[in-house]
């Protein structure tokens, strides 16, 4: 797992300036777009969300101290996504901070197992195991194990404590492993 969040504490990134904004966000764009893809229904919405995130981040640059830049950007993305959802589906969001609640609603912009299977084309046995996860569990697996976020970064993206990310992730993997323990493809590759 990437350890940006661990190294930032000892080697803080210098606070970016407006003029260095492009250089500052450039390395984070692939992750932002990937996470946006996990939060949105389609790639067009994902790109729009990242655009919104960049504009918000630029406006907020003066208040940013340079520490944990990816988590900072992911937090901005989460808030931008909440606002987008409120604009698009005002009746669905009762609490602006309840992105978890959004993920639990089947018609919310959280990736379904079918979406994941269709867009990532995983091995059938992985698609089968993913399809058995709840939306909450699927979301953390997507962010951490597929998109490569740290616990802290996934927490920033979802607006939940890192400990909650960890417990959901571990439970999700445990369930996937329990399901796959009887799967011939998984067993043949592991034993």
């Amino acid at each position, binding site marked *: 797992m990437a350890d940006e969040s661990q190294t930032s504490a000892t080697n803080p990134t210098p606070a970016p300036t407006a003029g260095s*904004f492009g250089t500052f966000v*450039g390395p984070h764009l692939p992750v932002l777009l990937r996470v946006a893809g996990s939060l949105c229904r389609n790639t067009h919405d994902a790109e729009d969300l990242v655009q919104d995130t960049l*504009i918000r981040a630029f406006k907020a640059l003066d208040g940013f101290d340079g520490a944990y830049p990816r988590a900072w950007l992911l937090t901005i993305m989460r808030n931008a996504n909440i606002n987008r959802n409120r604009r698009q589906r005002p009746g669905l969001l009762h609490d602006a901070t309840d992105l978890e609640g959004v993920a639990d609603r089947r018609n919310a912009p959280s990736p379904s197992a079918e979406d994941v299977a269709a867009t990532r084309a995983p091995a059938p046995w992985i698609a089968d195991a993913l399809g058995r996860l709840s939306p909450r569990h699927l979301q953390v697996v997507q962010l951490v194990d597929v998109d490569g976020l740290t616990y802290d970064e996934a927490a920033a993206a979802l607006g939940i404590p890192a400990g909650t990310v960890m417990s959901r992730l571990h439970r999700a993997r445990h369930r996937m492993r329990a399901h796959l323990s009887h799967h011939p493809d998984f067993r043949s590759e592991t*034993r």
Partner: protein
Amino acid sequence: MTPHAMLDMFRRKGGARCIEIGRQIQTYLDDGLDPASAAKVASHLHACRRCGLTAEDYRRLKSALAETSTPMPAEPLQRLQALAADLATGDKPT
């Protein structure tokens, strides 16, 4: 054999250690343990076949999930990079 006796036997065979390690395997594989704890888990996984196989399952699962990640298409990334550059130079309204 009574449940108490079974528990005693389980502990004598190192089962308590396995339970403790089992709780840390996923965090260990995610590089989330401090060095001392990681060394203890690594040592146990090397010595205990059952826990070693459990760890191997999770490694395989994590690897398979990571492989489902596809490269981002170039065009959206280029557009976003251009937007960031435009913001930096003040070419776009904010």
